[in-house]
């Protein structure tokens, strides 16, 4: 295993910091992470990662568990603010404004960024309808007709509508685990984010639901910038345009998905995608 240990200093130039091909001139970056380092009590979980995410694309983050991919994803929405001992340095630019800037409250940014967590976390005391509309009400949307419309759209996109359309007043915890996760996806979609962060969203779902969610992701790509953490390489191949491979807190390789899986430039990436460790 020692052979796999990376030497971070050798990659300071971030040769893969922006996904290839970089020649496309009109590409706009929706989100840029610059030199992001996250440490817990002095131990770096994410080391100096720089990544650029193109608008209307799907980026997958893969890597063995403990590689820092979830930690990195949470930085993109400032979810570490609540974690004790966590320290984040670097910049995360959304539409060219820094999420970590002291002048602007993160709430301005979080409005644009939806997030789906690994474990479903619906609000247990609220109905399905109220769960989906919770974020809308925060944003001052009160019109019942509009709310109804958004609920329907969001639940349809999360492939939950057909199962719950007749009892939207039902409590969210009466749903099965897979349904809860789709409800959480609908809740995130309802605030009409521009960026969607997904942390292994399919780990709680059965194969059929997983397939449906993957279809949703593909559809959403027309409108959204999606970043998805997954340890399922097949899933990454199916849904993503770009893939970043992380190992022990370092971003090892970040390229177009097809190229990364068929022609990895880094020895570690090659070993990982061929299933030699994980």
């Amino acid at each position, binding site marked *: 295993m020692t052979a796999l240990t990376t030497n971070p200093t050798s990659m300071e130039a971030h040769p893969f910091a922006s996904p290839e091909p970089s020649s496309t001139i009109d590409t706009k970056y929706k989100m840029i992470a610059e030199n992001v380092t996250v440490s817990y009590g002095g131990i770096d979980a994410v080391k100096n990662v720089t990544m650029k995410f193109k608008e209307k694309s799907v980026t997958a983050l893969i890597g063995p568990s403990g590689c820092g991919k979830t930690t990195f994803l949470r930085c993109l929405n400032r979810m570490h603010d609540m974690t004790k001992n966590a320290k984040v340095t670097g910049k995360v630019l959304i539409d060219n404004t820094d999420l970590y800037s002291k002048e602007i409250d993160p*709430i301005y940014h979080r409005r644009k*960024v939806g*997030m789906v*967590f690994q474990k479903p*976390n619906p609000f*247990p005391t609220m109905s399905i309808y109220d769960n989906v509309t*919770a*974020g809308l009400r*925060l944003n001052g949307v009160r019109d019942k007709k509009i709310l109804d419309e958004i609920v329907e759209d969001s639940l349809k996109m999360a492939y939950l509508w057909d199962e719950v359309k007749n009892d939207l007043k039902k409590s969210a915890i009466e749903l099965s685990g897979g349904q809860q996760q789709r409800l959480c996806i609908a*809740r995130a979609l309802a605030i009409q984010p521009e960026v969607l962060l997904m942390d292994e969203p399919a780990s709680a779902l059965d194969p059929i639901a997983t397939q449906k969610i993957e279809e949703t992701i593909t559809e959403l790509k027309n409108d959204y910038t999606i970043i998805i953490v997954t340890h399922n390489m097949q899933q990454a191949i199916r849904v993503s345009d770009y893939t970043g491979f992380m190992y022990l807190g370092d971003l090892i390789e970040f390229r177009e998905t097809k190229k990364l899986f068929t022609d990895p430039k880094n020895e570690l990436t090659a070993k990982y995608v061929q299933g030699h460790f994980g």
Partner: protein
Amino acid sequence: MTKVTLNKKRVISDKVFKIGATVAGTYVLVVVVLMAFQLISESYPIWEEEGLSFITKTDWNAVEDRESFGALPYILGTLTTSAIAMAIGVPLSIGIAMFISDAPAKIGGPLGFLVELLAAVPSVIYGLWGLFVFRIYFRDWIETPLHNAFGDNIWLFSGNPYGLDIITASVILAIMIIPTVSAVSREIMKAVPQQQKEAAYMLGATKWEMFKLAIFPYSKTGLIGASILGLGRAVGETMAVTMLIGNATGIGAIPSSLFGPSQTMSSIIANEFVEASPASIHMPALIGVGLILLLIAIVINVIAHLLVTRMLKIKEGAINN
């Protein structure tokens, strides 16, 4: 052979140990049953004499041959002071719990400890401070201005502000329940899973909105339990109230205005128990008041514990399965 006897010995001494522990464990049950029995049997003369009208009557006369006792004013006194104490103390406690559960440990820890120290101050010292310090300021700065402004029109503020009255006792009670209610509330708020808070923040909630979306709905039951626990404290509290409530008896103890004197169930016992003769029905009357107080305390605390325990069970349970 020796091995067998050794095993037998072990079984016997361990059995004795187990029995001893069980007896100590069941001691609390024995005490509760015996206590209920004693209070019922020793207050029996008053129930025999007055029947259920003991609860509804307002007289309180211990003069020989004209004895007549009714507990209503003290029941009302207890309920009024406790209700006002809750109205003041619970919102403050929830605010404190919100601040401390959310503050960084370096600030929240010491502040939480200071608030909890309020629980360590003996009741009688609250009484002393209330009597010689708090009452004076409260009377001059709050009661008198309120009375002068509204006394003639609003019954709540009628009555001559002297400081030995319902509102003073209630405010002191409110201070006394704060450590209990805030400490339990804080634990309950901390028990809300991190994922719930993250869900709210993900939607772009501010901290206050996060409390409204994630913490309050999730911990509602437990917070009600914490408040009822505080109510239990307020109902049973004796010394500070005795020193501040003005100790009226009979019909004069029925709460009529915030600035009027009253009497609670525990304070009338503290004031009169030693002087009551076991031979007359004065003492059974006081024990009867104690019995009513005990029943109220049991009901309140059973409800509170069921709510708090249920809440902490939900925490362990599988909402995020």
